[in-house]
């Protein structure tokens, strides 16, 4: 498999939000404006690239039995770094994203990629995977936050997009779209749109497809490492 294919797969076929339904908390919480959405996606992608690289480089050193605690420590370290950098250089954005920056550490996407991809592939491939998944996450956040900002405030990136007369006479911002219920409604409708567009409804209809989080986490946290299994059999 080539790096390009891995990146494309992350953006489209394995889009973390629209296909795998992973990492949904920030997708809903910080998408009140496009600026916040892009900021969150960049922070998460930075963490993902760093952790994927380090974990992939260390995959032969980390013992299989304690790999999850190791991954968590590595992820938490980079989240702290990103948090501190954002506090120093983009304090307003850091304030707007609030607790969702430290909460990147429990984002299922990051741990999921560490276990499913980085711990089995070379650093180059792991970086490609991180970029693909990160771009997929960015695209999802841009779409959700763009829709919410246009409907909820009539703006994009804080700038009015319609002529002034339109705001005066026709347009009334749907305030609820930038509040909690609007997030759920927007994401629900967007997921349906994607399912319709891409014929992915087949995935959605499957019984287990509705539980990808349980599957992913169950696989990560409970699977007995293969080496250990072999030893037991012997």
């Amino acid at each position: 498999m080539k790096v390009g294919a891995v990146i494309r797969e992350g953006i489209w076929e394995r889009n973390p939000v629209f296909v795998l339904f992973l990492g949904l908390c920030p997708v809903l919480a910080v998408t009140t404006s496009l600026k916040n959405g892009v900021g969150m996606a960049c922070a998460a992608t930075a963490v993902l690239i760093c952790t994927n690289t380090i974990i992939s480089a260390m995959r032969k050193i980390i013992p299989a039995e304690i790999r999850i605690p190791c991954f968590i420590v590595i992820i938490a370290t980079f989240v702290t770094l990103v948090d501190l950098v954002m506090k120093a250089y983009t304090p307003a954005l850091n304030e707007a994203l609030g607790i969702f920056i430290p909460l990147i550490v429990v984002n299922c996407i990051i741990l999921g990629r560490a276990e499913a991809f980085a711990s089995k592939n070379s650093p180059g491939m792991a970086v490609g995977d991180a970029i693909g998944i990160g771009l997929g996450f960015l695209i999802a956040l841009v779409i959700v936050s763009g829709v919410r900002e246009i409907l909820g405030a009539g703006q994009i990136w804080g700038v009015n997009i319609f002529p002034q007369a339109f705001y005066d006479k026709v347009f009334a911002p749907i305030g609820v779209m930038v509040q909690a219920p609007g997030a759920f409604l927007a994401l629900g409708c967007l997921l349906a749109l994607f399912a319709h567009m891409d014929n992915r409804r087949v995935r959605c209809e499957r019984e287990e497809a509705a539980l990808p989080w349980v599957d992913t986490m169950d696989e990560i946290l409970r699977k007995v490492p293969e080496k250990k299994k072999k030893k037991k059999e012997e």
Partner: protein
Amino acid sequence: METFGQLVAIVIGVIFVKNYVLARFLGLCPFIGVSKKTDAALGMGMAVTFVMTLASLVTWIIHRYLLIPDSSNLIYIIAHAFKPDVVPEDFNFVSTLRTLTFILVIAALVQFVEMVIRKVSPPLYEALGIYLPLITTNCAVMGVAILNSQKFFDAGGEGAPLAWSFIFALIQGFCAGIGFTIAMLLMSGIRERLEILPVPKAFRGVPIAFVCTGCMALAFMGFVALVKS
């Protein structure tokens, strides 16, 4: 009496007004993932409540005595015993270790709770066991610890006395779990009915679940006036 009023405000505020799932967007993965059946939803809710309460307790202690760089910091006290000229300001770096410490404490706590429940109460393990490993990466548990550390842990310094800050944190943890369980139960009830309804094809599964959650969140917005923010 005033602190008692605060306590009631926290209970109502965390369960209804700022429900962790419906208003704060925490713990959405299990909310969508495990809410297909009512039994599973109840089990997950109970497990989360249990772990959240314990996590609030443990993280409060750790935050108060390890992560705040003042004269009651344990690292400072130990260092001071060996080297009398150190001052609390030398340990300002400890506050940056919050994310790392909290996630490790929660992960260890979940493992520990799983072991204890398996030994002590097999029936309880049957009911909660399969959900416990999933809780490590539940952002609601981490979220309650971080929110506690932002809001209540410092209360020991000025306003409320230290003991109240501890109780506030504990109550917030417990009520956040109750709010989570209520949201899960409501959602599982709705989804069990959705199974037999003629939902448009594209909306089946997760999309319609989100639309329903949006309607629930709209309803929960009605509670906003209950508590002064």
